[in-house]
């Protein structure tokens, strides 16, 4: 007999399941709109030019493979923090922050979650927007935290339920933890406007909440890195000492290299040193020290003026293509004769779009048109191209008319 007879089969990952089914489909017109990675207008993965250049520069330096420090590559982490906070940030210039390299967004979130579990004794409760990225809940749960929710998405309007959010957040018990998506909310694509962010900041400050920002799409949302980091910077300027998780998977196309960072804004540099020492104690028994490759590439790009400039252009290019696909999808739907209001498709921002399609409609899209998406009606706009946007509009119209 086995030690593992009682081990249950884990449930299949809902998002991966979409890609599996897509791969099995033989329809030549099939579309994979479940993919959480950017695709170019030919539907192919895109390796940024600045990444290729950075890789060549790194190769020519013939560096060794010695272990990184536990907190990661310093040139990378410093540049990450500066990218998020802005070079003029008082918090950055004064050094009252600590930043450690994390395993992309997930790893950074998990370090933060573990840190809060160990050192934030005021509360076990983490408030997520409804809905949030599917992996947020298990990450915080495995770290030993409890999950709560605040209203966020309004399915009736396919936009932000601002009054609902404000009402819920005003009632969150003091010193709880609230998670906010810095930009390009996943999965809805619905972001607050700046005036709304200002009200949110005032409320969380009044409720004395610990703010945890998840920023996985800086630059990728609007095409402008400063604009996409606006909320993060505003909160810090309001005196809110946030914690922040960053990912370079999407905005640098470094998905499999796992480049990310976790930052804690502190009262002063001394507190930052103490926090850093504890973060290292958490990281060491997880994987000892982080992988170098993605961090080196990102560091080369951020710290080399020419490459940084090229990167900013390329990330804007990706964001612009997404925005253009949104626009084309809406105009194609109009051309198909759809009478529905599809404005939310262009109002929403980032890689994902909550179409508002119901599960039965999604099922028809999959079965009759080989258009694959998750049951909640979320599409990855990155999977749309000028070559297939017409077909997509046609299919959506057929199941919604």
């Amino acid at each position, binding site marked *: 007999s086995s030690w593992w007879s009682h081990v249950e089969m884990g449930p299949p990952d809902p998002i991966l399941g979409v890609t599996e089914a897509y791969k099995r489909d033989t329809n030549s017109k099939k579309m994979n709109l479940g993919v959480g990675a950017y695709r170019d207008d030919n539907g192919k993965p895109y390796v940024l030019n600045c990444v290729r250049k950075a890789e060549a520069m790194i190769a020519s330096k013939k560096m060794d493979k010695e272990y990184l420090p536990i907190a990661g590559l310093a040139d990378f982490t410093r540049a990450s923090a500066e990218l998020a906070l802005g070079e003029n940030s008082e918090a950055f210039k004064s050094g009252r922050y600590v930043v450690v390299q994390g395993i992309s967004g997930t790893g950074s979130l998990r370090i933060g979650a573990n840190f809060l579990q160990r050192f934030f004794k005021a509360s076990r409760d983490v408030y997520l927007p409804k809905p949030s990225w599917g992996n947020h809940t298990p990450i915080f749960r495995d770290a030993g935290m409890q999950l709560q929710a605040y209203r966020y998405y309004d399915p009736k309007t396919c936009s932000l339920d601002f009054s609902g959010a404000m009402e819920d957040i005003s009632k969150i018990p003091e010193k709880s933890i609230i998670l906010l998506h810095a930009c390009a909310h996943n999965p809805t694509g619905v972001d607050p406007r700046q005036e709304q962010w200002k009200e949110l900041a005032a409320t969380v400050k009044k409720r004395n909440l610990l703010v945890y920002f998840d920023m996985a799409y800086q630059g990728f949302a609007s095409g402008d890195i400063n604009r996409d980091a606006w909320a993060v910077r505003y909160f810090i300027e309001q005196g809110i000492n946030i914690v922040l998780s960053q990912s370079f998977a999407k905005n640098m196309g470094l998905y499999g290299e796992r480049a990310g960072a976790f930052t804690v804004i502190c009262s002063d540099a001394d507190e930052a040193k103490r926090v850093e020492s504890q973060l290292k104690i958490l990281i060491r028994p*997880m994987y000892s020290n982080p992988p*170098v490759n993605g961090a080196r590439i990102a560091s080369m790009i951020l710290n080399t003026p020419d490459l940084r400039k090229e990167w900013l252009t390329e990330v804007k290019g990706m964001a612009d293509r997404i925005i253009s696909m949104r626009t084309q999808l809406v105009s194609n739907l109009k051309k198909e004769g759809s009478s529905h209001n599809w404005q939310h498709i262009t109002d929403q921002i980032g890689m994902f779009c909550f179409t508002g399609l119901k599960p039965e409609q999604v099922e028809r899209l999959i079965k009759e048109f080989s258009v694959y998406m998750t049951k909640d009606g979320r599409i990855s706009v990155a999977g749309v191209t000028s070559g297939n946007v017409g077909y997509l509009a046609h299919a959506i119209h057929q199941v919604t008319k």
Partner: protein
Amino acid sequence: AYRTDEGQPWVLPVVKKVEQMIANDNSLNHEYLPILGLPEFRANASRIALGDDSPAIKEKRVGSVQCLGGTGALRIGAEFLRRWYNGNNNTATPVYVSAPSWENHNSVFMDAGFKDIRTYHYWDAAKRGLDLQGLLNDMEQAPEFSIFILHACAHNPTGTDPTPEQWKQIAGVMKRRSLFPFFDSAYQGFASGSLDKDAWAVRYFVSEGFELFCAQSFSKNFGLYNERVGNLTVVGKDADNVQRVLSQMEKIVRTTWSNPPSQGARIVATTLCSPQLFDEWKSNVKTMADRVLLMRSELRSRLEALGTPGTWNHITDQIGMFSFTGLNPKQVEYMVKEKHIYLMASGRINMCGLTTKNLDYVAKSIHEAVTKIQ
């Protein structure tokens, strides 16, 4: 970390070659790996540990999870055991770590949620060797189903491994008492210069029908320290059990790092998949192992030639990167302060720090420390 005879880090020639191949391959991109890692890496990494002709592999009862270094593999294994071994979420299952061991072992299992971490006798300071009787006694006394972390080869920090006969005795007790073997294999190939020899213990346990975990690191034997290349090999009773175990490990991975880094795994997979590159790698590994073995024999012969009090055969009996010299804390302090030779208070030296240029100085310094300080 390994150092050359010039005291420098060494990027293996085969690694340089493969990295160039990867850089020149325009079909490659930076897309996500699957959650469990690069398939070609996983299968080949487990094959390295268990052997090409492993019956367990033939019977399809081996699973693999690409992890971030040996540490990552230990952590994923520990997290799984805490959730699913000996009941559900049984944090009370005792976990036994050798005395001494790599310090991080304790933290890995503690942070995974285990509440009862104990030591088992291992190092006999008096005779400077394995305390087999103490070890076996601890296993006899251990509660049934306890987890034992075993160093597959090149025990860290003592460099003292059980002989095959001793491993057989250990396995016998563990089987009888239903103890779980969790191997930590960080030095396969690096210890003796032979992949097969260094994997003997793991393979023996598999042949004895154990279900076990083996956390593999490719940091040292591939010199890929900062790429974080590791593999958790799972050997189960049958394919069905292994499949369910892997599905649950996937969930653990998903909330820890989602999916593993691709660069290091690509290098290892490419190397292991090509007969030519594989041979080249084995030869690079032997180069490293042979240099360490040479430093051991040269240090020992110098100490014996100097007539340094005590016996020094343990320097060559021990294996791997580290050696427990037997120097006491005062003698270590002398080495550090007066001779500027850095070693741990435990008397552990890193053999990789020895070079043909400094052998004489180190031997003389040890001689001074032992004769001047009691």
